[in-house]
């Protein structure tokens, strides 16, 4: 039983990292109806940006929450800017092209970032500096709450609440929802849709930046291909929750995190990835619109 509680904690911690990345997929899908395959590599660049800035500033000498927050900010800026560039130069020129063209471009951008990363950063994994010290914060009998897990949870929760506020309460958030609902109508009501789309990329990418530093802290090994697996899983999480649906992405990510943790704990870590993608297959068969997604029939 104690083990079970411990696994729940670990699973939620993993799930909230997936959520930060899944949100980027789902937001971009919501607004452009495209899967931004380069998203996972934006996340990778965020980790490297944080890595180099951390080394440059010698952050390892003063681990703590302040260092962590600063690196998160660095990574958010780097990812946000990269997301902006990708949208502006790779996707925007294709706005009127068939959907398939944008999808293939996204894969191209993804490969470009992965292999440029190998050229620039080197293919060997690097060790992410220790931004915080991990210690046991609280114990309930044999169950431990470690500082890393609490930090991951806290930071992701704050990030998601900020997103919620942005989308629900601000002018730009309202415009994002309007463009997502019907871009043409929104533009005829005076909304500059290009600006809103660019903004969506910036926000989604900077959330991935938050995730990248948290992962770097928790699993301190980064390499130019690190985005692939976690990106795929975050994507599955977004589909599981109902792609395009913000709450769904968080729900899907938590389910993914928890189930992975449980599979590793009670079955075998060999099956971890198989299980994750098994979920995708099952959801596509039985609930193709995802848990919170609405399946809409096209009128003919």
């Amino acid at each position: 039983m104690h083990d079970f509680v411990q696994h729940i904690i670990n699973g939620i911690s993993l799930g909230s990292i997936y959520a930060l990345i899944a949100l980027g997929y789902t937001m971009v899908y919501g607004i452009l109806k495209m899967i931004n395959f380069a998203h996972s590599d934006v996340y990778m660049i965020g980790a490297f940006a944080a890595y180099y800035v951390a080394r440059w500033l010698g952050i390892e000498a003063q681990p703590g929450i302040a260092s962590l927050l600063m690196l998160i900010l660095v990574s958010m800026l780097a990812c946000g800017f990269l997301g902006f560039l990708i949208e502006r130069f790779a996707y925007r020129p294709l706005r009127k092209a068939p959907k398939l063209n944008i999808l293939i471009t996204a894969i191209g951008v993804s490969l470009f970032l992965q292999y440029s990363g190998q050229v620039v950063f080197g293919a060997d994994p690097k060790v992410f500096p220790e931004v915080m010290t991990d210690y046991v914060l609280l114990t309930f009998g044999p169950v431990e709450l470690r500082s890393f897990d609490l930090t991951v949870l806290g930071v992701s929760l704050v990030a998601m609440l900020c997103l919620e506020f942005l989308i629900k309460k601000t002018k730009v958030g309202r415009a994002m929802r309007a463009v997502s609902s019907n871009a043409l109508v929104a533009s005829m009501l005076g909304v500059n849709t290009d600006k809103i789309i660019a903004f969506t990329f910036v926000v989604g990418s900077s959330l991935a930046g938050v995730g990248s530093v948290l992962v770097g802290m928790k699993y301190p090994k980064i390499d130019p291909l690190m985005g692939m697996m976690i990106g795929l899983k975050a994507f599955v999480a977004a589909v599981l929750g109902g792609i395009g649906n913000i709450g769904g992405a968080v729900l899907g990510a938590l389910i993914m995190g928890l189930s992975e943790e449980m599979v590793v704990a009670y079955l075998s870590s060999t099956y971890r990835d198989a299980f994750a993608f098994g979920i995708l297959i099952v959801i596509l068969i039985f609930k193709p619109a995802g848990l919170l997604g609405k399946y809409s029939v096209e009128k003919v």
Partner: protein
Amino acid sequence: MSAVLLEARNITMQFGGLKAVDSLQFQVKKGQLAGLIGPNGAGKTTVFNMLTGVYQPTHGEVFLDGQSLSGLRPYEISHLGITRTFQNIRLFKGLNVLENVLIAAHQHVQYGLLDTLLQTKRFKSSEQSLRSKVIDLLHIFNLEKKALEPASSLPYGEQRKLEIVRALATDPKIILLDEPAAGMNHSETHQLMETIAKIRSQFNLTVLLIEHDMKLVMGICENIAVLDHGVKIEEGAPSVIQNSAKVIEAYLGVEDEA
């Protein structure tokens, strides 16, 4: 004779081999209530799409207040003062009634994200005046009590009204109504006619409407253009249109001579 507000100068819209609209020429004067009618498939909605920048005319130009709209994007045209409603209702479904209107009203607001985050004075005062303006608009259409309900939950007639409110919130010079009475019964249509007349005088608006309900068109429009197969076949006051042989022919076909 009042000034011309909107002018289409020889606009043509060609889709492949099909000329949906062919060299259409018409003017709408400031303050006028004008109508655009024609049988199904005549190209009326295509005209609206050209006027709002959804389509760029293949040939010809549209002028608003003497300014050419060529090459402008829909949101820029909206900022200049053309707004519209849609034949099939196109509200933002996930948003509530108030938010639907706020989107449209927001284009005039001069505060940024930073103002929102810091809740600056500028944010608070402009947000407040904006909201009261929107509530006033909703009030005119008796929708203010439903401000916080999802737009998609409103009954059909009210969704149509909400589309008009949303369009008005952009502070337009001219509003294009695409079949505002579609699907409405007799008394609802009558109510709508009164509302259109009311908003015109209250907001100093110019109105151009597409409508199939002839009673409505003939009852309120001062000038009517008739379109058939993309070509304007007649234009004039309701009495002229009602007695035009060409219009009757377009709607009912030619009488067999035998």
